[in-house]
């Protein structure tokens, strides 16, 4: 009872303060001091972080791993990752109050599929990028096949470091009929062509990104983006429409961030084959070919 009364008094006090300020817009921010104020974010930041992560789900088996008094959260489009390119986001919360921590890094993500007789890794980004200035880090992984995988990583949260391997995660098959990863061989090495963000494609002009990852000599090590320079010509067609194609597509070229970017024009929804013609820095064909090459991604928008 007395508590509630105290609240009323406080409210009255605020009302007086605000009316006294007479139209001044500056809000009165009262930070509640905590023992580690410097690692937590402001309410505004927390609001922005939840806006950024809205629409994403925590990845089962990967998210909510504990490290000291912190919890590491991992987000993706769905609770299970799928074959092909997946965006993933890392965030660290203080376990006791759920507030986000600013000072952390994640490194050495090492996806691994253990098939008994053999083990292999898969294409993955070679770095994590901070999302704007918020304590969220983005990366991507592109599992080659469905099944049980592990995705261990290293962390540093303030002065605390360690490795977490989590429980095995279940990678789902890609939707029926699509093919978001293709491979080619060059000088006895295997390269993977990973189509970025396949869920974001829509009718119209799409700026698309892709990655060319090279299979590691030790197949259990992550397949990082190749250091070679390529160009990928694209030729989209609709197999259900007599290979109807679209004009004004632009080849994918290497960007500073290691991705390949170009323009993909999709004139309607449905199934599209994006035929690829991979050329090296000198313009020599290294995989696929002109127009209806047999090297192609298949998407379904």
């Amino acid at each position: 009872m007395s508590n509630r009364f105290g609240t009323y008094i406080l409210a009255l006090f605020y009302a007086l303060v605000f009316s006294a300020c007479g139209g001044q817009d500056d809000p009165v921010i009262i930070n509640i001091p905590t023992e580690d104020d410097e690692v937590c974010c402001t309410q505004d930041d927390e609001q922005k972080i939840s806006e950024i992560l809205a629409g994403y789900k925590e990845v089962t088996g990967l998210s909510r791993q504990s490290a000291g008094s912190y919890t590491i959260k991992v987000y993706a489009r769905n609770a299970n990752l799928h074959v092909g390119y997946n965006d993933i986001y890392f965030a660290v919360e203080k376990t006791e109050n759920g507030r986000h921590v600013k000072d952390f890094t994640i490194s050495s993500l090492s996806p691994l599929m253990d098939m008994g007789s053999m083990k292999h890794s898969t294409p993955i980004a070679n770095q994590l990028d901070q999302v704007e200035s918020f304590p969220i880090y983005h990366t991507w992984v592109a599992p080659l096949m469905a099944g049980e995988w592990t995705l261990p990583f290293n962390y540093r949260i303030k002065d605390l470091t360690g490795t977490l391997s989590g429980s095995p995660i279940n990678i789902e098959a890609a939707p029926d009929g699509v093919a978001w990863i293709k491979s080619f061989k060059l000088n006895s090495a295997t390269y993977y062509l990973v189509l970025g963000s396949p869920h974001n494609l829509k009718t119209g002009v799409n700026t698309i990104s892709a990655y060319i990852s090279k299979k590691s000599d030790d197949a259990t090590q992550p397949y990082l983006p190749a250091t070679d320079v390529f160009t990928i010509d694209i030729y989209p067609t609709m197999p259900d429409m007599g290979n109807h194609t679209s004009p004004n597509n632009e080849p994918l070229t290497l960007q500073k961030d290691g991705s390949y970017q170009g323009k993909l024009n999709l004139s309607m929804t449905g199934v599209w084959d994006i035929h690829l013609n991979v050329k090296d820095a000198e313009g020599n064909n290294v995989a696929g070919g002109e127009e209806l090459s047999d090297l192609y991604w298949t998407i379904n928008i």
Partner: protein
Amino acid sequence: MISLIVSLGLFFPQDTVFKEAAIDEVVVSATVGTGKKAISKGRVASIDEHLGQLSKVEMVRRGNYAWEPVVNNMATERVSTTIDGMKIFYACTDKMDPVTSYVESSNLQRISLNSGLDGNPQATGNIGGSIDLKLCRVGFDAKASEYNASAGFESNGSVQVYGVDAAFSSHRFYTNFGVFYRHADNYKAGDGDEINFSQFQKTNAFANLGWQPVDNHIVEATVIYDIATDIGYPALAMDVKKAEGIITSLSYRREQLKGFFYRWESKAYYNHITHNMDDTKRPDVIIHMDMPGESQTAGLYSLLQGNKDKHYYQVNYDAYYNTLFADMTMYPDGGKPMYMLTWPDVGTFNTGLALTDDISLTPYHHIRLSAKGAWQHQRINNDEGYQALNIYFPGMDRVNSRFIGRIAASYAYERSGLKLAIGTGYGMRAPTVTESYGYFLNNTFDQYDYIGNPHLKNEKAFELNGAITWSLQQLQVKAEANAFFFQDYIIGRPDSRLSPMTIGAAGVKIYQNLRHAEIVNTTLSVDYKPISSLSFENRLTYSYGRESTHARLPLIAPLSYLGNLRFNYKNIQAEGGVRMAARNSHCGTEYGETPTTGYAVWHLNVGGRFMLGHVAANLHLGVENLFDRYYSTYSDWNHIPQKGRNIYVNASFQL
């Protein structure tokens, strides 16, 4: 009595020599023997058959229903069609539903055609001409009550037509309303072959109301509901499940005003059309698809009419907003549906001011001047459709504004058996939604997919026309010609870079402005009347169309002849005649047109009006294509054959 004439008569004084070279009318809800053109099938004739009576009109047939009127060898894009001044736009991307298909003969009193750029006040974009369908309103102080019933039957295709309507009228109030039903099975061509998918069924209901709370203050309302179902289009790859139109209007009119204007009419209107294509009944459909379309138009106009001294003038302000939406979903066997917008929900706002002045300089000399200016603003309302067009036109604007206008002048002279009329005009039209924003619209005429071009310029045209008539006692000879010189003529041209969407299509065409094009139409008519009950009418027409690359334009009528021998005796009218056309060897081969062979087709009919007690009866009996000739005209889409021999009989009763 004066108010009766005014209320009934929307007949303006210019229905005289003024527009000798330019105006043509067909009376729809008329009984036999009323001077103006009336079709022998009488009240049960279809709108398309009525339109075919107009001398500058040809009909493009894609089936046995919903023919597309072509005026001066120009189709829908270059022709304005209004219903009592109301704008209405078709909802099918494949032109399966010209707006004239959403009314029925029983709705109309007459169809008025203004040839060329001298359009009716509400018309915009009328280079070829403007058609106004005048609704049939019984008016105040007419017969207190009148009942009509009509029925018709045609042997070829078992066509059945039934209609009833009623009219009530007093000094303060009138109403007329009715329903009409039409049903046709597949028809047979001249060789007896059944033309599959040529059936249709249509129901139309209408009501008109008039209220005059105070003399000369008139409130009028109209509602038309029209629904056609199971319509076959033998010339096309698809049929239509349903085509539905609702047309409404409310107007307020002042009559007998003093001063500069004697009449002021303001009307607000709304119409809504939905159109659903259907390929489920066709064999060998590679990919089943749904293609619905929707057109909505709301608008108003305000028309002032007046006369003073030698002048009869009209001032009209009009505005309308129309949206056109059409999409297509294709269902490949076992595959994921494919979706696109074929008309990306385009909103068009158009507002304009029109002026006309008819001047009688002397009893022999007349001048007519008309002008209209309009501002049009268009916007693509659907984002997905806009994004898709961006592939083909990177960086295109989502909105488009433009000014369009027209101006025309004509001079007529009439004295002792000689009539002379000359006229000229200059005007422009904005590209249609199909021409600007259409998306992969397959045209079965040339097998191309068409994509609109948002960067099109207005199409401009300069018109010259003239007519000379000599009337002797028994002979009347009339020679008539008009010529249209286009700049930035809009037509689809192949773009070999682009890949068609339709399986089996020849390629993709993009609408372009051609530098120039010309269309010339000439007619020679000779009417001979040896005795008052007998007349022999002859009409010979020749047209020519060519564009700047020297290619012939498509769908230009070949040399054709129409001959009719008419016999009138008391209440009986009989007619026998022939329609002939030469092979159209100079057809638009560049545009996918192939020649049609020449033909001669004969017809006979007899009709009469009788009194059966208090009931007036009109009876008609006739035969079309008397010798069961197998033929198709140049305007039969993909050369679908015309009807073979067809015997019809119909009757209408009036009480």
